């Protein structure tokens, strides 16, 4: 029987196409599933797939050590992109699918904050631990908005993340803007949960640091021509354009059109939403002079090598975050199994152990969670694009 379980787990994890989740734990045998919901197709896939691969790598490594009770980990991954764009309704649907599968003990995802808003009420209701590698909106864990997401169990916090939140990333971006000598900023955001949250914090922190914000405009979904907006910005002669948003919501095109609008020499600064390969290809030659922060300290050599070896490609901006999120889930499940004496742990136990995570060694630093479920590790990496490549500039502290 253990041999059969091993075989099954090997088939499921070895498969790179979305694995189907079975509806009953009877057939799952002694497989412990880690659910994944990320955008695996479309404009966000260049972020989603490397993050998913990070999860796969962590699970494969965990399976090399034997667990008590002969358990094996498996990844059940689902795609939340519809017609090429991350979709909150699809994310909610995927979360329900994962919740309905008793073998799923923890969930990794989603990538986008607006998708998380649709998913948190479902995992809260099910008591399923959810660890996001990349959503950074503060409203997901803090304040009244976060409280409203915890509909079924207002006192249970089942949503965690291993990345720094927007208030930290926005603050780090403001620090970065000052560091590159910018005094006058024009702020553009995509009017989504992530982008607007980031831009609002940037604006506030940049002003606090003595900078001037010349204007703050919001993009409309689906828009591709930003010349009029950039002409408006140019007339105010900013020395940096701050963009709150992702490549898929306009980041690449705005940077590209800055060159056409005579603003090629003006710095362009954003958050981790523009840190993907798709940004570089969309903006083309105009990408040079772009700065962005990634809510994860970079540069863990052993991880980079292991990832390269397994997937035959270099890591994406969120591979390490996906890996770290999976490590959190695996560590929580391990502890729950040990405490239960080798029996299949309950979701409640897993959630309890994940909540208590402290100083867990990961490629993105020591992960632990504060009372909101956010990481206690507030270091971000600043990158600059030159000659079409993102170059690591240094670490930026987001401050408390």
């Amino acid at each position, binding site marked *: 029987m253990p041999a059969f379980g091993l075989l099954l787990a090997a088939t499921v994890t070895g498969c790179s196409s979305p694995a189907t989740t079975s509806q009953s734990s009877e057939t799952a045998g002694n497989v412990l599933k880690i659910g994944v919901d990320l955008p695996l197709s479309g404009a966000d896939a260049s972020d989603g797939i490397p993050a998913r691969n990070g999860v796969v790598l962590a699970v494969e490594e965990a399976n090399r050590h034997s667990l008590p009770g002969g358990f094996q980990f498996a990844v059940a991954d689902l795609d939340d992109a519809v017609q*090429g764009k991350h979709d909150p309704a699809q994310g909610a649907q995927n979360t329900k699918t994962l919740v309905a599968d008793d073998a799923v003990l923890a969930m990794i995802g989603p990538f986008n904050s607006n998708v998380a808003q649709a998913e948190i009420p479902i995992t809260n209701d099910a008591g399923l631990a959810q660890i996001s590698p990349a959503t950074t909106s503060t409203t997901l864990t803090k304040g009244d908005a976060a409280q409203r997401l915890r509909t079924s169990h207002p006192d249970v916090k089942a949503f965690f993340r291993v990345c720094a939140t927007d208030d930290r990333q926005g603050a780090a971006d403001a620090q970065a803007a000052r560091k590159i000598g910018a005094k006058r900023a024009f702020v553009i955001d995509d009017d989504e949960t992530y982008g607007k949250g980031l831009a609002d914090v940037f604006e506030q922190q940049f002003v606090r640091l003595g900078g001037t914000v010349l204007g703050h405009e919001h993009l409309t979904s689906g828009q591709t021509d930003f010349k009029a907006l950039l002409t408006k910005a140019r007339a105010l002669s900013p020395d940096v354009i701050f963009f709150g948003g992702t490549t898929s919501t306009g980041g690449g095109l705005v940077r590209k059109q800055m060159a056409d609008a005579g603003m090629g020499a003006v710095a362009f600064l954003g958050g981790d939403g523009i840190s993907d390969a798709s940004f570089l290809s969309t903006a083309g030659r105009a990408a040079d002079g772009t700065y962005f922060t990634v809510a994860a300290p970079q540069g863990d050599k052993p991880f980079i090598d292991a990832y390269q070896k397994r997937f035959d490609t270099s890591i994406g901006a969120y591979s390490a975050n996906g890996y770290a999120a999976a490590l959190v889930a695996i560590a929580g499940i391990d502890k729950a199994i040990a405490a239960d004496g080798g029996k299949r742990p309950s979701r409640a136990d897993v959630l309890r152990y994940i909540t208590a995570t402290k100083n867990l060694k990961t490629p993105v630093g020591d992960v632990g969670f504060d009372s909101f479920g956010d990481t206690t590790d507030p270091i971000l990496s600043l990158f600059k694009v030159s000659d079409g490549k993102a170059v690591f500039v240094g670490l930026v502290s987001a401050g408390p």
Partner: protein
Amino acid sequence: MTVFFQQIINGLSLGGIYALIALGYTMVYGIIELINFAHGDVYTLGTFFSLAILAGLGVSGEVHGLQLVAVVLVTMLAAMLLCGIVGVLIERLAYRPLRNAPRLAPLITAIGMSFILENVMQLWHGPSPIPFPEVMPNPSFRFAGVDVSAKQMAVIALAVILMLALQTFIYKTKLGKAMRATAQDRDAAQLMGININTTIAVTFLIGSALAGAAGFVSGVYYGTTWFFNGFEAGLKAFTAAVLGGIGNVAGAMLGGFSIGLIEAIATQYIPQGEQWSNVVVFSVLVLVLIFRPSGLLGESLPEKV
């Protein structure tokens, strides 16, 4: 004031692309009273064909001089031809069999064709944005403080040239006359010996070829495309056609440029204008339709839809 004129240039170049797409909507509506929802996707297909042709020609970077003229002409004409053929095929397969069906039926197949094209393109190049090679250098020229880039001039000029050519075709050639006759009264035209099928096929050929031209131009102008590109552009172009008076060629042009201009001016002069520009565009549309239900240049016809 220079900012105002700069925005006029921005608006005209954006409007030029809307206008080229709107021409196809308006021609098809004019002749068979069908809103061809697949038209926006034919436009996207134009960018995809252009990509394939440029790859076939081995062009991946800037070309200059005569070579540039040749590359632009070959790519654009080939993309126009291919899109024209696709348009004719769509008409033959999806609309002609339903020509005498209730009006809702071809409308639904049009939406179906749109989905088919989108998904074919998604299979072809994947769902992510695709960079378009920087074919032409883009020097800016300064006129009294207003920067006009070479690409912007090309877009505006091309839109005007193609519209003039289309007007000439419709009003000066025999086939154009047949098109106008078919648009006025299909049965009477048939009785006068006009081959309705050929005439409608030619309408689709030309309309789709113009979308192909728009596709090539937008690829060069914006330097990017993706399979869903046609949705937003198609919506705006359709609005342009309605604003100008659907069925009217000059109206589509006027509508396209108007919408581009309204967007640019609204973005500049309204606080948070980028967000409000669509609201302004559609408010203008509503106002125009209240006072001129058949659009700016539309003739008052008996109610059709």
